[in-house]
């Protein structure tokens, strides 16, 4: 007798195949339809550093509440080729149902193989190109989500291609959907999904991490980007380029990263709100420029999408090993701000905040993300998209204007060239108040102090970490930063242990002085995607917090909920 297979409010569907086979297209169609239907969806993707071939996969999760994490478990695997099985073999369990074309994937060691002749549905509908549509439909049928949502989606997407294409796609969807439903019945697959009724649903955005950072930049009134492509940072450049007409953003693809950062600094000096986006290796080249920003007090926002290093490392994989890099980037001593969003909402807000802080404190503000975060897709409430008022702190200069005037708080009013009667001299050398180079030791002493003084005010308004599970009284605190918010939250939810609480940092530097009290007397565990525990070291250096446990991972993959749960059990 067959076992009934029941899936309740936590379903993991994975699409595996080669680059160019369309798994991204399938996943994003599925996610769109599910989101519109009122499900909580989350998707993340892992892919090789090549354009065609290889083995990639995308996970789509449907959950009872919003989740932002990767799970190791696969419930339904759509294998678009035989390699997908090999590639994902450690994740295929006896409970996994594998959908594949039997002609290509004859058998599976583990799990149940369902022959899903997806291409033939497409062919029946008129063209093998409709396979993606058919695949999405199979999944929807399996899940028991009404086909209507998909049909609407197809109408929209293919509107420009003519009615015939729309009709053919809908036909492919019908065939796939029917097959999915039949399979569910035959294999006694019972899926329970909490669907929010339409009227209760708050307005939601569906987006990925890249878009979230991009939207944040647009919301901040960013008017300038100069960057050089580098995965996974390129997306933000592409995003702003795509939106450049709508928002009148000047986009310059630089010849190299050194040019990118110096161009952005020139732009910012002249009054633009400027950002650069890159990854660790590209950022390493920008460090002299970061130091220039420090010396000249020219505001700058840097988005750094982390990937595994050193050197070229793994261009399309994920890691959180560039914290120390940004913390100490550039020679000499000068202040900076490091923000690391853990949710899409945070990415939108903190990217804006980065621009605000950069302008207010005349320094470099970092938005530190990673491949996992940037390439993840999920939904967030539209109400959270807040636009902070844009404060530029630019003054009209008078004849006596001096760019580096000494003031009590160390911040000199910022003038820009061509605005007012004064002139604006911006200098990479140590300089006097007018901006001319100086070798006066006393001026030097005061200028260093001036530049460093702002750290205090900055720290005072630093974001506090957020409790993401458990209560503040718990003796054990698990700390995560940046993209690990979701996996920590979900793991703690899973464990439901009163002695465990989670604390998520979205501002990594400087720390708010009140942070220390949150961690005082606690047994601290730090969870981070690197090999050495960089944030744990930072906690120790800045707050004298000793870390009892470090949960680290440096394979190039994100943490899965399962492994974090497992690791936390040991505490």
């Amino acid at each position, binding site marked *: 007798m067959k076992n009934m297979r029941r899936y309740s409010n936590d379903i993991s569907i994975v699409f595996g195949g080669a680059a160019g086979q369309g798994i991204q297209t399938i996943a994003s169609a599925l996610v769109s339809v599910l989101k519109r239907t009122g499900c909580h969806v989350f998707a993340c993707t892992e892919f090789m550093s090549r354009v065609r071939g290889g083995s990639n996969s995308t996970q789509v999760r449907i959950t009872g509440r919003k989740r932002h994490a990767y799970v190791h478990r696969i419930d339904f695997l759509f294998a678009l080729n035989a390699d997908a099985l090999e590639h994902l073999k450690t994740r295929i369990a006896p409970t996994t149902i594998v959908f594949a074309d039997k002609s290509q994937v004859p058998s599976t060691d583990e799990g149940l193989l369902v022959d899903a002749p997806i291409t033939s549905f497409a062919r029946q509908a008129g063209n093998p190109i409709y396979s993606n549509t058919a695949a999405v439909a199979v999944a929807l049928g399996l899940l028991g989500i009404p086909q209507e949502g998909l049909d609407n989606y197809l109408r929209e997407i293919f509107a420009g291609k003519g009615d015939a294409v729309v009709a053919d796609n809908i036909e492919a969807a019908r065939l796939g959907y029917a097959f999915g439903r039949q399979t569910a019945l035959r294999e006694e697959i019972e899926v329970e999904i909490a669907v929010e009724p339409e009227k209760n649903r708050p307005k939601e*955005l569906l987006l990925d991490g890249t878009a979230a950072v991009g939207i944040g930049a647009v919301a901040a009134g960013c008017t300038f980007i100069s960057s050089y492509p580098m995965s996974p940072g390129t997306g933000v450049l592409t995003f702003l380029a795509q939106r450049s007409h709508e928002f009148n953003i000047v986009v310059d693809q630089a010849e190299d990263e050194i040019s990118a950062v110096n161009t952005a600094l*020139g732009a910012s000096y*002249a009054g633009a709100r400027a950002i650069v986006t890159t990854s660790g290796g590209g950022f390493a080249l920008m460090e002299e420029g970061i130091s220039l920003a420090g010396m000249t007090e020219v505001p700058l926002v840097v988005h750094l999408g982390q990937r595994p290093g050193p050197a070229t490392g793994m261009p399309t994989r994920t890691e959180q090993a560039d914290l120390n890099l940004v913390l100490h980037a550039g020679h000499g001593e000068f202040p900076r701000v490091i923000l690391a969003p853990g949710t899409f909402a945070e990415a939108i807000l903190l990217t804006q905040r980065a621009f605000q802080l950069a302008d207010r404190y005349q320094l470099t503000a970092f938005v530190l993300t990673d491949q996992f975060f940037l390439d993840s897709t999920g939904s967030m409430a539209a109400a959270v998209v807040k636009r902070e008022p844009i404060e530029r702190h630019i003054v009209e200069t008078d004849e006596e204007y001096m760019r580096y005037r000494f003031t009590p708080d160390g911040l000199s009013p910022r003038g820009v060239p061509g605005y007012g009667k004064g002139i604006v001299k911006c200098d990479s*050398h140590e300089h006097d108040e007018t*901006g001319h180079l100086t070798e006066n030791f006393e001026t030097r002493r005061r200028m260093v102090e001036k530049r460093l003084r702002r750290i205090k005010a900055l720290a005072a308004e630093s974001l506090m970490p957020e409790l993401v599970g458990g209560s503040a009284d718990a003796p054990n605190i698990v700390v995560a930063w940046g993209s690990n918010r979701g996996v920590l939250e979900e793991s703690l939810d899973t464990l439901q242990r009163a002695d465990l609480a989670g604390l998520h940092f979205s501002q990594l530097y400087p720390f708010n002085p009140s942070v220390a009290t949150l961690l005082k007397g606690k047994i601290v565990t730090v969870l981070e995607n690197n090999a050495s525990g960089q944030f744990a070291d930072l906690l120790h250096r800045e707050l004298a917090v000793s870390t009892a446990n470090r949960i680290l991972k440096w394979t190039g993959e994100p943490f899965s909920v399962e492994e974090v749960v497992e690791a936390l059990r040991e505490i």
Partner: protein
Amino acid sequence: MKTPSPEKPNPFDMPHKEMGWCPGCGNYKLLDSLKGALFELGIDRRNLVVVSGIGQGAKTPQYLNANMFNGLHGRSLPAALGIKLSNRNLTVIAESGDGCMYGEGGNHFLHAIRRNCDMTLIVHDNMVYGLTKGQASPTSLPGMKTPVQIDGVMLEPFNPLAVSLALNAPFIARASAGDEEETKEIIKQAISFRGFAVVDVFQPCVVFNRLNTYQWFRENTYYLPGDYDPADRMQAFAKAVETEKLPLGVIFREETRPVYEDLLGIGNTPLRSQEFREKAFEKMIAEYC
């Protein structure tokens, strides 16, 4: 030179600033030519930004009463680009030494020409690294001995004119700092030119370059004749690779190449004054809903 008078002093003068150059350095003359050109062109110093890198020549904007971005060694052109694209009403001049521009900054030199922004590049070409005390620069002549090049320079000298031509730069000139009046006129042409204007200026370094002195430049250069046609690219290349005697003047000039600001559709409003587009923002958010 139509010199500024006591009644009409040169607004670019900064009389009280102590200068860091050696007595007799060609940079003084070049600075004078530049100030003369700016004065005669009637440029508003508040709308002028002089961008430089690091080196002796790169100190120029420290001695000029105008906006200054004295950035990193080798990086004047990227900064100049950012400035120009953010406010095209500004007159932008990038100024640096041969090492700064063709050595550390070589890549930006290539790609700045490709972009063709409306700005002027003035290279203080003394064929040596002055500030760091006399090592070879990209334009040093073979055989010149230095503390590092103890057997003399071995590399083929970098030819800024030929490379600019190869990259299709629309305005290419060479001047000689010893000739203040001629240099001033060349700089005036360059600043007035609509597009990226390259001006390589021979500038004697009286301390570290004992080979390429004022006299050497006088003896080894000549001005292009009045009937020279700067529109002919092939002829310009022939001129650019001459080594017997080095031609001075505008070697190539092409009026028709569109400037990058126009291609990008940049308007006259500086980016700092741009209004936030609320409507577009709402529309964009809606697209994600």
